[in-house]
């Protein structure tokens, strides 16, 4: 799980290039969108795309995505669960 979280943070900082945020600054339980890291709906598309590419996991619908994109913790849990299934 920790490895997945680290990879997710790398995606956010390296691939999405969130300005002014370092990997160690990202809180596992913190919000990714809006007030949190400030991601927007376009970032959501790219993040979903990168997750599929990196982990082979698809976020198929918006209800699922809403919960999954809540935080790094939620994302990592989702990816781990999907990989086991």
């Amino acid at each position, binding site marked *: 799980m920790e490895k997945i979280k680290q990879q997710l943070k790398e995606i956010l900082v390296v691939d999405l290039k969130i300005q002014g945020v370092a990997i160690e600054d990202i809180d596992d339980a913190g919000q990714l969108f809006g007030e949190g890291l400030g991601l927007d709906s376009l970032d959501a*598309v*790219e993040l979903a795309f990168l997750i599929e590419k990196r982990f082979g996991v698809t976020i198929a619908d*918006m209800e699922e995505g809403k919960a999954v994109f809540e935080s790094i913790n939620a994302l990592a849990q989702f990816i781990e669960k999907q990989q086991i299934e």
Partner: protein
Amino acid sequence: MEKKKILIELEKLGHWFFYMAIRCGGYLGGRILLIPVLSCYVLCSRKIHQTLSHYLVKRFPEMNRFQYFISTCRIVAHFGTVLVEQAWLEICKTASLQEDPADHHEFELAVAKGKGAVLLMAHVGNWQAVLSQLNTISAHIHILMNMNEQAAVKHYFELQNKDKPFTVIDINGPCGGILTAAAALRKGDLVVIMGDRLTTGHPVSGIFLNTPVRLPTAAYMLAATAEAPVIVILAANTGGKHFQIRIWDCFYPEYKGRDSREDMLQECAGRYLKALESYLQEYPFQWYNFYNFWAQ
């Protein structure tokens, strides 16, 4: 409150007359009834002239007041025709519109690649006709749109394609429905988006009829991440019961990273606006955005 009730009842009565005219006189009956109805409307309502003036002064800057009045009448008449077509197709089960042939080769090639496609449309012409003609395509179709527009579109689509359902993705959902649309594209499905109406999400500015305007961008980002094409597909009423669906542009947005994202979105929006301008050069009176488009 009483006034509102009376207006609702009057509207119902108006619909009854309208449907009765089409039941008795078919398509022609509906068109004939349009004449007095639209005459009253354009003569009594100042609002419609104000609303359409935003578009007309930009599209026809050289016109005088009388010409603007006539142009407003022409747009309203075209829009009335679209409404008659819809009602006629609903009432007369054997009714059908005639599609004039156009080159769809580029569209068919893009769809055949199996990478999905974003079909970018606009509130011009009889745009619902595009949806009714998508039944020849094997890919599943999703429409990203506002709940308010769903009923009319679903209705129109189902009239023509009873055996082929389509999925509506609500833009008012979380992340503007964009994740569902992205997943659909990755499956090789088609996603229909109205590219001209900014309701939610990240906007970008472009120049349209020499004036800056803000547009939605989800379509371009979706296509870029899925490596799918954006196909600008617009329909026009070409006279009587005839319409034509044409591909006005087809391009592949290229996403290189967050740093250049704005530039990419701006370039795509520019191409879309250019296609829309070309369309309006040919069909200037089939513009159905009845609000100040440049203030959105």
